[in-house]
């Protein structure tokens, strides 16, 4: 009997897990709490490495050839033309189709004709001619092997001949680059490696052509530490290859094995950047290394933002939602207790303290993005719960950039709210402006609500939760239970029904009923709860559950008579079942709860009378 009971329990528990698996369940970025995002636009060429639950951020790779002003290849051509042509005309001549005629209107082509630089024109013609070969094709013969076209081999040979014959070293180098790239697409990494090593290796100063060539040479490198070192250099210097080159970096190797190939401190920092980019966990040591080797690195600012995004996910996703941080698969966390979640948050707050120590040690004059470090420091102070330190540090700052000010405002609003005594917490006046300004940032509004709820102000918390009615935020109660099918909430009303006491609901109703309007902030705040009848309905229902039928009746009586037939508990439980609407409620079963509970109350009173007992 015991064995069969255990078996049944195991079977049921496995069914529960399967039920989750085939039902919608929030995961990934939709759960993540992320407030440190005002600086994201500063790093467009790192956008695909933004912190995310996906393998890479779902951001289109930034095409910097679309902006000729910052395209390093175009800059080289403008330089080649002695700065006599605009970047736009150079981009048009290089990237668009046949514009090479003497009669072309393009300024760069006209210039080359005027200078009788037929070698450059020939190069451009050849480069456009081989463009169609610079792609990996599916094998049209449907073979699993990659297609190698003999025609491409002919173009490689032609590029090498032209390179040897070219007198201009810039064109020579470009022809060798074409050969390396064609060899790469021809699945001939050895050839790509050979041409690169003979004509590009160690060349100084290196241009974008050298780094592009290095990219196409990497596949032929068998030493994975050296391959990772090359990948890091391409990552640092050829932004358009960043995404692709990531796959050549082996982050399982000891960092020192890769760093030993670096010829200077910038190269060592580049390796550490690549290492940190590939790390989903603590990257503080790499950040320290980058700062020591190349404090002005642009990537350091980006990685600082990324590390803050990790930390806020680790700390605030569980703290505000009782869900695990998004990088931990929630299906594997079924058994994770709140205690364990909060213990992890403690660990992560300790990591925040270490980050804070590092940020404190940074000389802001030496870094490229001091404001990112300032905002990060304020946030870290909040994370380690040094609220007063956080507020006084923010007060000491004079942010010049709009995004810094926005970031600090958010942190300040959270900090002011959290920095109150239990039972005396209100929405701080200084936070009101930020809330109005950020009213579309629903998770931020929710977080402020959560802070208030933790400090006992359930009324303002509910008013803030009610601002989100589109089910875009999911959260759990501390006991990880709900009265519904799911173990989480995504609608304020359900949450109040599942967790609020009758006292808390009554306070909320009183506040809503008492509010007469006039103040823009409060108009917005109270605007979330539009139907007080539903609140009375909930209150009455809660009283029924407590067997306090008189108070239930009183609550139902407060409802507008017209709203009584539309209450959420009107439905006959034998006919209206959530999720399985397989039969219709017969008309005769439709009731209104006031009449129903009047009868119930009467019966209850009669049975409770002493002389009727027994």
């Amino acid at each position: 009997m015991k064995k069969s009971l255990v078996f049944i329990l195991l079977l049921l528990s496995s069914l529960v897990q399967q039920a989750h698996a085939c039902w919608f369940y929030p995961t990934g970025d939709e759960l993540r709490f992320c407030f440190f995002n005002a600086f994201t636009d500063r790093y467009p060429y790192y956008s695909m490495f933004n912190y995310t639950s996906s393998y890479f951020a779902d951001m289109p790779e930034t095409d910097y050839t679309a902006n000729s002003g910052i395209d390093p290849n175009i800059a080289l051509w403008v330089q080649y033309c002695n700065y006599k042509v605009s970047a736009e005309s150079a981009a048009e001549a290089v990237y668009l189709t046949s514009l090479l005629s003497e009669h072309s209107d393009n300024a760069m082509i006209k210039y080359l004709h005027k200078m009788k630089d037929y070698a450059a024109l020939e190069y451009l013609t050849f480069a456009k001619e081989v463009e169609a070969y610079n792609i990996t094709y599916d094998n049209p013969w449907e073979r699993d092997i990659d297609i190698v076209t003999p025609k491409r081999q002919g173009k490689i040979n032609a590029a090498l001949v032209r390179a040897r014959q070219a007198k201009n070293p810039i064109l020579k180098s470009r022809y060798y680059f074409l050969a390396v790239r064609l060899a790469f697409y021809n699945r001939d990494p050895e050839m790509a490696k050979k041409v690169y090593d003979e004509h590009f290796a160690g060349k100084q100063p290196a241009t974008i052509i050298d780094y592009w060539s290095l990219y196409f040479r990497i596949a032929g490198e068998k030493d994975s530490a050296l391959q990772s070192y090359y990948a890091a250099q391409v990552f640092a210097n050829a932004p358009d290859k960043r995404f692709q080159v990531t796959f050549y970096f082996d982050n399982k190797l000891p960092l020192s094995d890769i760093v030993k190939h670096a010829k200077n401190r910038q190269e060592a920092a580049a390796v550490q950047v690549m290492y940190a980019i590939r790390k989903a966990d603590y990257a503080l040591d790499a950040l320290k290394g980058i700062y020591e080797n190349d404090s002005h690195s642009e990537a350091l600012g980006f990685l600082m933002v990324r590390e803050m995004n990790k930390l806020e996910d680790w700390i605030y996703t569980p703290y505000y939602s009782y869900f695990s941080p998004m990088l931990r698969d929630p299906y594997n966390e079924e058994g994770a207790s709140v205690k364990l979640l909060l213990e992890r948050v403690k660990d992560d707050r300790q990591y925040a303290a270490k980050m804070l120590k590092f940020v404190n040690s940074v000389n802001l004059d030496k870094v490229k993005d001091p404001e990112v470090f300032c905002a990060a420091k304020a946030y870290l102070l909040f994370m380690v719960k040094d609220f007063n330190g956080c507020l006084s540090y923010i007060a000491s700052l004079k942010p010049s950039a709009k995004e810094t000010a926005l970031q600090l405002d958010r942190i300040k609003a959270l900090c002011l709210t959290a920095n109150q005594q239990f039972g005396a917490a209100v929405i701080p006046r200084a936070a009101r402006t930020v809330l109005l300004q950020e009213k579309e940032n629903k998770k931020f509004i929710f977080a402020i609500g959560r802070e208030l709820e933790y400090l006992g102000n359930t009324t303002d918390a509910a008013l803030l939760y009610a601002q989100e009615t589109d089910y875009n935020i999911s959260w759990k109660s501390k006991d990880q239970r709900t009265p519904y099918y799911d173990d989480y909430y995504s609608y304020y009303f359900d949450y109040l029904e599942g967790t609020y006491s009758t006292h808390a609901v009554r306070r909320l109703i009183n506040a809503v009923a008492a509010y007469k309007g006039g103040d823009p902030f409060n108009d917005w705040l109270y605007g979330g709860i539009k139907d007080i009848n539903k609140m009375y309905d909930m209150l009455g229902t809660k009283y029924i559950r407590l067997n306090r039928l008189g108070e239930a009746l009183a609550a139902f009586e407060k409802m507008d008579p017209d709203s009584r037939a539309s209450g959420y508990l009107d439905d006959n439980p034998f006919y209206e079942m959530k999720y399985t609407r397989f039969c219709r409620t017969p008309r005769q079963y439709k009731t209104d709860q006031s009449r129903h509970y009047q009868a119930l109350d009467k019966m209850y009173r009669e049975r409770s009378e002493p002389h009727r007992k027994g």
Partner: protein
Amino acid sequence: MKNILLLGIVLLSLISCTQHKAEHVERAFYYWKNNSWGVREKEDSLLNNLKAKKLYIKFFEVEPDNIFGSIPTAKTNFHFYDEDSVYTIIPVVYLRNEVFKKCSRGSLDTLADNVDFLISKYAANFKTGNGRGRGIDEYQMDCDWTPSTKDNYFYFLEKLKKISGKKLSCTLRLYPYKYTDKMGVPPVDAAMLMCYNLIHPLDDKDKNTILDIDEFEGYLDTYEKYPLHLDIALPVYSWAQLYQNNKFTAILYTDPVSGENFRKTKGLWYEAVRDTMVNDIWIRKGDKVKHEVVTKEALQEVIKIIKKKIPLDDTITVSLFHLDGDQLKNYSHEEIARIYTAFTE
């Protein structure tokens, strides 16, 4: 002396009247559509009625490509799953003559390997009894080679035969049939003599370019037996060439002239008497159509000439181009059966 002369005349006339009839004809069809998933019901019924058990199915075409050298195009989607059937499937590959221009022996080796690979891959979509489970044992290559591409094409055929280990046949136009000295004899096991499309569709305004009997007969005036086993392919299709403002604009595979929208002008020509829509093409009043049809009488005439002029082996395959229910509705089953039986009579 007089008697000897008389005997000689009788013998000569006997020889000239010799009929090379076949003892046995294997009934076959070409299947040339790319986008069809399988045989339609009426086509299946036709095959059953005619007891035609051999299908020459075009698997793909090969054309030159700037990047890859040569690529397969117009790949078939055809599937045939009936392990109880006794159909014999012969994959056919049409190769554009340009494929064999300016190519190296190495690239021809690769091409042969690729062709064998892709045929084998698509062959997996055909589950038939295929001669009781023998699988596919013959490939047929279709190419209108020229003297300049002859060597490359023949090299490719040799290579393909070696790689595949299959019986290899090829299509044979009447020109290379007649001029073997110039066009060579392909290194294959058998050839399919294509007794149609002798004239470029746009070259002759008066003749039926699908099948012109005089033109056809002229190509058979050869006194040497072709050194390969010959099978015969005959046309059972019709088309109409549309000319708008006296300029060729389209080929129509449905019969546009049977209704009242066209009037016959001269020979094969018709003129639209009112605006009409055919195959999603807007034909305006005054547009001209050359309607080319292969009649059953013309086919019987052609067979008579073939039997007279081509020494046929005892067993031959006669394949009709092509299996298309819409086109074949112009013939009764008996008329089509007569095409096969006429070779043995």
